[in-house]
């Protein structure tokens, strides 16, 4: 057990690409956690997607042993946190497991919206923050200007900010020393106190079962101890206690202030809620640690295999993903237009993208997703309130009293050259401006926005109107009543379930027209006219007509062509299995897939 005064628990807060992973690697290397040979670039981001996107999805921790200038060996526990807004609750728990944080800011790029959000989370958790300017070796570095910016925007004193280059190693020793001298050690506790450890994250390992990352707050956790998870109420016997160096190393116990992992014969991560308190089964704590919140999916969409025969493979993959990701929800869904698939819930859009990408990359599945939807609260006339996340379940309007939709507080940082279009975009998305401030030539705008507008095409539009210079962050704030309607898309009078959407009345016509227009381009011409309509209830709000096919044949067909022509017909017959009938016409499923795939471009 480590002497608490010699422990420093910290995380690194940084925007994507500002060098968090490189810095973590450099710290591990400097403290001898891995030999140079073992040092794979960016050790902590173990998934391909994490490495490629520079986003950490799962929290990880590394114990570093650092011999400081005072001649004493300190234990530095680096908690690597998820780096995206969708995981802000997870980030807040990772931060709550630390006493300090390194704030990494790119010395030429400056502060971005996400950094800001995470710094505020750190301040909320009373963390001591060491500001660090990275990439100081680059010619474009302007440390003085960026320091002023950090002071202006965040209000953090930068007189002691360190200037480093994680890439070349400049300033790493100074940083390690600052961690020891400037960060507080964990509060001194008696190791024999009642155990309270915070569950920071968990994942499934094929050999060990579920591995749980913990921070011991009070007491001691030991191998063989029977522990209880206070939120879920389940009890398990600890069969392994260990730390990461970053290699897994078994230890006998973890005491107050220490970080590490346990395994306890747990089969599914669904039992392991981030932020839960682990206590002793025989001598349980009276109160759990503060701050636990069950995670709830915020964004939903349907995922369907492009090839129906991939459904079983998709089901299998969903099961495996759920093993590792307790915030991912999936249940089976049937769509008349798309066949069998799953309705899935995510923490946010990025989470959705990551899952989609993992399904296609790790499981080699070709998937199509329906338009993302948020969770609406519908108050019915009978007083009941229902949560609605699938437009297909939209009740008859005559039963509806009011509909509420989730709103967010969005923070956008953007060079002032692009401010105009960003403001226009926010207004178009029903945004309400809260704040607009300038820091040098960058503007920081804060808007209240309905989440359903953000999940539609906000990211892409923001990226395009700002040429990629805007950064964006949000937090869910409240539910507000809204004039929301279900827009159905009808083909020859029959609704296409997969294309239905819930939108604000003011957007209904535009969105309906948009999708009808797209279908018109995608559906092959038929022998008969095809009416494409968008409707609210029985009222048509947009309409397109796909004219009948004008001609398709005047070639020759003689004795040698019969067999070929007949085989062509048989092939067509085969193809009809992938068709959906709407009145007189048959529409290839691929048209719907394509309509959804083109998303919101």
């Amino acid at each position, binding site marked *: 057990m480590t002497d608490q005064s010699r422990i420093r628990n910290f995380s690194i807060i940084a925007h994507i690409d500002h060098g968090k992973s490189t810095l973590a690697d450099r710290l591990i290397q400097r403290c001898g956690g891995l030999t140079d040979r073992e040092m794979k670039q960016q050790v902590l981001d173990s998934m391909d997607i994490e490495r490629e996107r520079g986003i950490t999805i799962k929290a990880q921790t590394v114990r570093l042993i650092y011999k400081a200038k005072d001649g004493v060996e300190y234990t530095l526990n680096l908690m690597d946190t998820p780096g995206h807004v969708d995981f802000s609750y997870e980030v807040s728990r990772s931060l709550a497991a630390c006493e300090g944080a390194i704030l990494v800011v790119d010395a030429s790029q400056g502060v971005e919206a996400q950094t800001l959000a995470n710094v505020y989370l750190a301040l909320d958790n009373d963390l001591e923050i060491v500001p660090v300017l990275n990439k100081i070796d680059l010619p474009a570095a302007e440390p003085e200007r960026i320091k002023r910016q950090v002071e202006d925007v965040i209000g953090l004193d930068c007189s002691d900010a360190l200037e480093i280059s994680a890439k070349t190693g400049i300033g790493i020793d100074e940083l390690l020393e600052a961690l020891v001298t400037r960060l507080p050690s964990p509060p001194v506790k008696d190791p024999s106190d009642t155990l309270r450890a915070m569950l920071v994250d968990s994942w499934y390992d094929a050999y060990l079962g579920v591995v749980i990352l913990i921070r011991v707050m009070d007491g001691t956790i030991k191998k063989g101890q029977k522990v209880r998870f206070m939120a879920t109420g389940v009890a398990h016997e600890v069969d392994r206690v260990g730390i990461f160096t970053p290699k897994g190393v078994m230890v006998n116990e973890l005491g107050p202030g220490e970080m590490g992992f346990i395994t306890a014969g747990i089969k599914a991560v669904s039992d392991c809620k981030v932020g839960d308190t682990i206590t002793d089964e025989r001598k349980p704590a009276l109160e759990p640690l503060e701050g636990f919140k069950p995670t709830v999916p915020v964004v939903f969409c349907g995922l369907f295999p492009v090839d129906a025969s991939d459904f079983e493979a998709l089901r299998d993959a969903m099961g495996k993903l759920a093993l590792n990701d307790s915030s991912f929800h999936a249940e089976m869904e049937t769509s008349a237009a798309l066949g069998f698939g799953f309705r899935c819930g995510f923490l946010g859009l990025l989470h959705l993208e990551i899952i989609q990408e993992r399904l296609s990359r790790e499981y080699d599945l070709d998937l199509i997703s329906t338009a993302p939807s948020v969770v609406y609260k519908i108050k019915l006339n009978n007083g009941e309130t229902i949560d609605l996340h699938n437009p297909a379940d939209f009740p008859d309007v005559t039963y509806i009293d009011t509909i509420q939709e989730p709103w967010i507080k969005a923070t956008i940082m953007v060079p002032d050259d692009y401010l105009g279009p960003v403001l226009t975009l926010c207004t178009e998305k029903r945004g309400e401006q809260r704040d607009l401030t300038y820091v040098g030539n960058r503007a920081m705008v804060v808007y209240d926005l309905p989440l359903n507008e953000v999940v539609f095409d906000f990211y892409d539009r923001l990226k395009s109107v700002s040429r990629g210079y805007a950064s964006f962050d949000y937090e869910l704030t409240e539910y507000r009543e809204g004039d929301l309607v279900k827009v159905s898309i009808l083909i020859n009078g029959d609704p296409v379930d997969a294309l239905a959407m819930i939108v604000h009345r003011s957007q209904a016509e535009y969105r309906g027209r948009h999708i009808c227009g797209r279908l018109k381009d995608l559906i092959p011409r038929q022998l008969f006219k095809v009416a494409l309509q968008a409707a609210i209830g029985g009222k048509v709000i947009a309409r397109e007509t796909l004219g009948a096919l004008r*001609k398709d044949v005047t070639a020759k067909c*003689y004795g040698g062509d019969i*067999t070929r022509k007949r085989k062509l017909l048989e092939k067509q*017959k085969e193809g009809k299995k992938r068709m959906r009938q709407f009145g007189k016409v048959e529409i290839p499923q691929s048209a719907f897939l394509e309509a959804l795939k083109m998303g919101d471009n």
Partner: protein
Amino acid sequence: MASSSASPLALYVHWPFCKAKCPYCDFNSHVRDGIDQARWRTALLAELDAALVGFEDRTLTSIFFGGGTPSLMDPETTAALIDRATARVAPAQDIEITLEANPTSVEAGRFRDYRDAGVNRVSLGIQALDDESLRFLGREHSAAEAMTAIDLARENFPRMSFDLIYARKGQTPEAWAAELEQAIGLAADHLSLYQLTIESGTRFYTRSQLGETLTADEEVGAALYDATQERLEALGLPAYEVSNHARPGAESRHNLAYWRYWDYVGIGPGAHGRETRDGAKRATTRQRLPERWIEAVERDGHGLNEVEAVDADRQYREILLMGLRLSDGVPEDRLIRATGRGFEALDADRLQNLIDEDYAVLADGALAMTPAGRLRLNAVLGYLLA
């Protein structure tokens, strides 16, 4: 002469060689140097002998020499094949013997020899009546040569047809109307008017895949088709099939045999046949590659590649997909005789939809396409049969 009650038989002979491959053509044609005409004659005669065994009691109603370019075949070969065929199967009194010919001067110079061999109808691959279009289509002849060939054909053969390819890129309805007018003035009694289609495996296909537009778009193509129907109807050559027009009585009897699903025997490389033997319909195909075919014939006495039984269900579909090309459509009794099933076997709702949309007509015991239906026949067949 055979009695008129004997069931009819049509004979197709495939000559697989061309001087050059046209960029739009996906037929079984090959460019080869130094063709041994005598060897090919012997092989075709051998296969003819084998193919006609068992059909001695039929009436031979037509012979069609197609290709490739059969006007590159020695007239002696043509004569030998006609003589052998009519010796084995009694010819109808009005037997139609057609030769496809290209209008180059060399080939036109031999028209008299083909006539002497017994050919009584020629089908000329004119394709266009101006030099620019002929160059675009990669033809070996000029417009002037075409005119000469037409004159010579008229002198030598009682019946003449020629092909034109239209709905080329940039073709206007006015220009096409003028071309049609000129064609009729050349005294053909039969015209095959094909819209340019891009078939895979052709040079045009490659070019279109690379982004080049070679054909008129769907709208223009449809307008040109409608104009063609109207124009030729007025001039006395109504359409009797999707792409074929004739003065009444001048229809190609050989091709009608295909569309009416009569029996036909096909010989030569890649030739297909539909033959009824012992009451069962069979589909025959022959070795496609000229070298393979001739080796097979020399070894086995025939170049048959595959003989497939055509069951009632398949016949039903084949009868419709061929027969609905004809303006007369398909009489229900043709289906019933061949398969025991009439129109009741079709999807009644779909049939009604086609009739309601004015694509199809059900009258006098026959199902026929309207001109609008013929213009979209692939889609109609897909709707009805797939």
